[in-house]
């Protein structure tokens, strides 16, 4: 386990809280963090810090869908509680990860009354995301630049910009309507690559191949892939493998959409 406490800090905690309230808040906190894409060891450290500041210890098991957390009082181990909480996976949110980690240090360094901690937690998680339109525009520009990095010319960049604009817009809309994530990725990959193949169909520019190849790259689950390797290297091997399999399935969905549009082109033309 990750013990972040130095041996000297055994002074009784300045604020007291019931095991039930603390356990509920920590489960909310963990479920939110896991849902926005934190790696497992950071979660374990953050939770241990908060529990520590109220005089409790935690041990937890984390899987992709559920968290099991045992929390017990440092002096009196008859005060204990073990609960399981479902994880709602949402879009990745680095702002939450950053601020919730800072909150855990704040609680550890300057213990605060429990309702103040709860208020701060609620304030952080109610913060809205960046505007969807700004994200759409920036993602399209990013994918066009990506095409340039692979050696595409300006025509290819234009095609990729339009393909990403359409594909990512579709992804935002379908995700809002709570469609299955795998289906969303496959459909967006199909639409983006169909638009991306315009250059090949009509012979536009000198690098139509590059345009087609980069048109679907905005769908690659980069952060989950990185997190899976982080987890495996840090010893959370089961958690890491389940993340890797999930990312792998999404990549297969991209390949399915891409294959369909490649097949409509006819392979001889490639």
């Amino acid at each position, binding site marked *: 386990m990750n013990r972040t406490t130095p041996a000297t800090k055994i002074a009784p905690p300045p604020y007291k809280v019931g095991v039930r309230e603390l356990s509920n808040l920590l489960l909310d906190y963990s479920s939110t963090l896991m849902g926005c894409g934190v790696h497992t060891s950071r979660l374990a450290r953050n939770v241990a810090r908060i529990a520590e500041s109220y005089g409790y210890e935690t041990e937890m098991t984390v899987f992709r869908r559920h968290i099991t957390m045992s929390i017990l009082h440092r002096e009196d181990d008859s005060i204990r509680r073990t609960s399981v909480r479902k994880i709602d996976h949402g879009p990745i949110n680095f702002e939450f990860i950053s601020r919730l980690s*800072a909150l855990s240090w704040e609680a*550890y360094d300057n213990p605060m009354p429990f309702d103040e901690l709860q208020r701060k937690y609620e304030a952080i998680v109610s913060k809205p995301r960046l505007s969807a339109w700004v994200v759409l525009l920036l993602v399209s520009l990013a994918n066009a630049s990506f095409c340039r990095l692979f050696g595409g010319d300006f025509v290819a960049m234009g095609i990729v910009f339009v393909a990403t604009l359409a594909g990512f817009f579709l992804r935002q809309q379908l995700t809002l309507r709570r469609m299955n994530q795998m289906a969303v990725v496959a459909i967006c990959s199909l639409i983006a690559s169909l638009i991306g193949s315009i250059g090949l169909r009509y012979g536009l520019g000198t690098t139509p191949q590059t345009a087609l190849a980069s048109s679907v790259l905005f769908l690659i689950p980069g952060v989950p892939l*990185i997190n899976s390797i982080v987890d495996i290297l840090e010893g959370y091997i089961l958690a890491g493998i389940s993340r890797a399999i999930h990312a792998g399935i999404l990549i297969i969905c991209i390949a399915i959409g891409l294959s369909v549009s490649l097949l409509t082109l006819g*392979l001889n033309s*490639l």
Partner: protein
Amino acid sequence: MNSAFLLDIVLDGLFAAIAAVGFAVISNPPRRTIPYTALLAAIGHAMRFWMLDIPVSITAASFAGAFSIGLLALLFARRLHCPAEVLSFPALLPMIPGMYAYKTILTTIQFMSDKTPPEEQQFLLTAVFHNGFTTLFVMSALVIGVLLPILMFPKVAYTMTRLLKPIVGK
């Protein structure tokens, strides 16, 4: 190193920065970290571009680029008061080997097609493995490269979001 090549390196870094910003905002990063992510991505990608010209293999060059991103992220994360991975993970995204992944899929489909003559199939099979292994190894090199600084200095890396005493005092 002539000036045309220097310009190529700078342009490569510039486009990598735009790509990193775009892919970063999907993950809703804190606003103050976005310029730093762009800077890290530009440095890492330009470094890989330069090393590929030496020439070094793409796996080794990606590792070096990712390692420099990881080190710089540790430096900046302290100042920005955020976890290092919030800076470094989005900066890695422009280096993800998308083109090799695409070619793996394309050559696999061509290999499976009934219309492909047998003498072409063995070349396609080689291409499938070449592209597939490159994708896998570059991906692993990126992550190991960016994690190495964190694993080397765990004490530093794990206290990034802790407010230092002087800040608390004022």
